[in-house]
């Protein structure tokens, strides 16, 4: 804790005006803190308990994936993509695969598309369940965490049977997936849908109506529509601020255009809306899974494999709707089987960029709630 010195501000602080009647001071939150979702570091300028300015610092998990990818083949890069946003590994894999498919003109059979959609939506639910659990824990309701992980384990089990891994699956390949789904897949997914519906009601009974939660979340951390647009927010964060845009509906990749689902949008842009948008999204994802399971086709699980995955020279892009927002992949291909440059557009980085404006003039305890409601995954930001 430093007392404020007029001439020297810590790096990143911009406002120089100081209220002369009270003493402002700085505190450091992180990089090792249970509610910073990994290793985010915040430096806060406080007036008493009121937050005046927030400066985030990144890089405590900067693993240099983009540099490392330049010396690995395209298929090897799929396994690195698991590790940015480990809560949505399947969706990251799909982003890379879509770019490679576009470049090499590889199509995907129908069954493979259905596998992709079901697995992606399960992954989205799984990620939102972790959000729900950690959000509750950050708000002081630790039991929420236990409830959320109970249902998440069912999804982990499905993924385990599917690919042998619970978290970093590395399952999709250009043209489909590396293996067919096991016989137990569809019955287990059906069983999961049957279990999650009542569990969702339980979550709402347990947490959403809680008066302490409502007081701490309504009208806290408001992100206006203009701010969200200007800072490039996407996904649930943008939809809670009234930006009605979902890639799955507006630019449908894979076969999302065949399903009937809603895109939850809310207009206040506060912590409560961001929470509710995610909870409603889980129900919409369930609807997609239900429809996909009902008409799950027979057939091949991937298209013809290629002897080598060498992309034609040029730039190839893809965007997918991850659980956090729009996840973009940008590949610059030159000769050979290794990329010249790969860049990933991180939705969490953009979603966090208005943190300072959102936290201003709220209390210190609200910063934790606002941060949790943005649901950032730090390794995805740092890459």
């Amino acid at each position, binding site marked *: 804790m430093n007392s404020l010195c007029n001439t020297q501000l810590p790096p990143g602080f911009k406002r120089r005006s100081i209220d002369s009647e009270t003493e402002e001071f700085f505190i450091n939150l992180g990089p090792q803190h249970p509610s910073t979702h990994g290793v985010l570091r915040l430096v806060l300028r406080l007036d008493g308990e009121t937050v005046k300015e927030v400066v985030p610092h990144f890089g405590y998990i900067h693993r240099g994936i983009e540099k490392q990818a330049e010396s690995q083949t395209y298929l090897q890069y799929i396994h690195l993509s698991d590790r940015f946003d480990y809560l949505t590994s399947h969706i990251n894999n799909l982003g890379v695969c879509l770019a490679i498919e576009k470049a090499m003109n590889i199509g995907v059979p129908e069954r493979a598309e259905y596998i992709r959609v079901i697995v992606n939506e399960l992954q989205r639910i799984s990620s939102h369940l972790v959000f729900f659990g950690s959000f509750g824990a950050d708000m002081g309701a630790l039991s929420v965490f236990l409830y959320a992980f109970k249902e998440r*384990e069912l999804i982990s089990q499905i993924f385990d049977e599917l690919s042998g891994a619970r978290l970093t699956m590395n399952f999709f390949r250009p043209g489909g997936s590396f293996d067919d789904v096991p016989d137990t897949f569809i019955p287990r997914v059906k069983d999961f849908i049957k279990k999650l519906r009542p569990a969702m009601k339980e979550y709402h009974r347990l947490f959403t109506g809680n008066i302490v939660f409502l007081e701490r979340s309504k009208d806290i951390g408001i992100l206006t529509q203009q701010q969200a647009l200007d800072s490039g927010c996407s996904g649930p964060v943008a939809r809670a601020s009234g930006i009605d845009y979902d890639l799955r509906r507006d630019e449908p990749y894979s076969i999302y255009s065949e399903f009937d689902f809603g895109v939850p949008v809310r207009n206040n842009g506060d912590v409560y809306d961001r929470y509710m948008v995610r909870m409603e999204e889980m129900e919409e994802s369930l609807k997609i899974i239900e429809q996909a399971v009902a008409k799950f086709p027979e057939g091949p699980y991937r298209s*013809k494999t290629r002897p080598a995955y060498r992309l034609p020279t040029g730039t190839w892009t893809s965007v997918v709707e991850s659980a956090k927002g729009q996840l973009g992949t*940008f590949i610059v291909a030159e000769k050979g089987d290794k990329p010249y440059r790969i860049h990933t557009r991180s939705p969490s980085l953009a979603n966090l960029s208005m943190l300072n404006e959102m936290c201003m003039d709220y209390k210190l305890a609200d910063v934790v709630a606002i941060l949790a409601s943005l649901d950032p995954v730090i390794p995805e930001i740092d890459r």
Partner: protein
Amino acid sequence: MGIMKFIPKVLDPVPGGKSMVNAVDFIVNWARSNSLWPLTYGTSCCAIEMMATSMSRYDISRFGSEVFRASPRQADLIILAGTIVEKMAEPLVTLYEQMPGPKYVIAMGACAVSGGPFYYDNYSVVKGADRLIPVDVYIPGCPPRPEALLQGLMLLQEKIKKETLRNPWTEEDINTSPITNPFGDALQAWKHSETRKDEEQADARAKFKEENPDYQGYKHVRVKREVFPEVPLAEIPAKGLTKAQLFTAISKKFDQVGVHGLEEISPEAIEEHNPLEALNLTVPKTDYYDLINFLKSEAGLDFDYLFDMLSIDWKENFEMVVQMQSLRHKHKIIIRTILEKDEDAAADEVQAKLPTLSRVFRAAEWKEREIYDMMGISFEGHPDLRRLFLDDDFVGFPLRKDFTSDAMIPRGY
């Protein structure tokens, strides 16, 4: 521990005292091993598995370790769940120093054990946590399953149960702790067990042949190779203005723009060139700022959303790439600008400059900081141009093609 360490000195010479020391050892170790309080320390993927282990199904509290502490001063076990990078090394050592002894370390996952998937061609990952702090238990896996973490915890409990007051736990000096070579030892043990296994199998085979002289053996069956069909790529219809319409609207105001990779420009050629990708517009450096301003404000185009910014190092020059889209009309554009490298600047200095976009789009502020950090391109008028990810004293810009670092181990293939 002050008085405790005198207990063996006093009691051991007394007849029957040794068993009393053993009894005290047993009680102390039993209590200590069954109440390991871990620190909530998780950097990346493994942290989720650590959380899953402590939750409903796997329930780490069966082993007395459910009390995850937020403060290192209350914890006596640190589970290194996730990658440790150079910037995190100093906070990690501080955390370890703040924990009261006796304290234990579990390296969970390949990254904490050895750097794992980030071992080769990587400039920022610490290749094994034991280069920083002494590690008691290594758990392989990427990430390890919850069962593996529980086994690691049980191994640590076994280790604690072997401790004795005659030789109590002492803190190693972490700065001079030797870098042990667990792989070499493990390799020796593995080779030994493999030879033993081969011998046992040969014996078993000989015995089986003696007992069953008529045995024919089995025939190899060739598994039929799977045949996959050739499927055409499904096209995603583009929305909003077409590429040719966009180009005409822009080229009215900016006559120096071109299309990337296309020499003769005509509306049909633009549509046919690279039909799956958005319009790749090349623009000279002088028009870069004005063009993006124009795209944002011009009615009918309405590029209101800055999707991404990145830069490419083409060895002779840099290329700046800006991806924009219009959420209203749902069309996209990619703007590319070539930046000449400053020949006089050294490899670890800024070699190109551009005007900042942070006044046009707030989203550009951090993306430009990232480009400055990774590629060493400076942005004039940026409100806060610092490195985004790396330490301020880091030398060089990693994504440049001529970047070298002592920490990078090239993969040998």
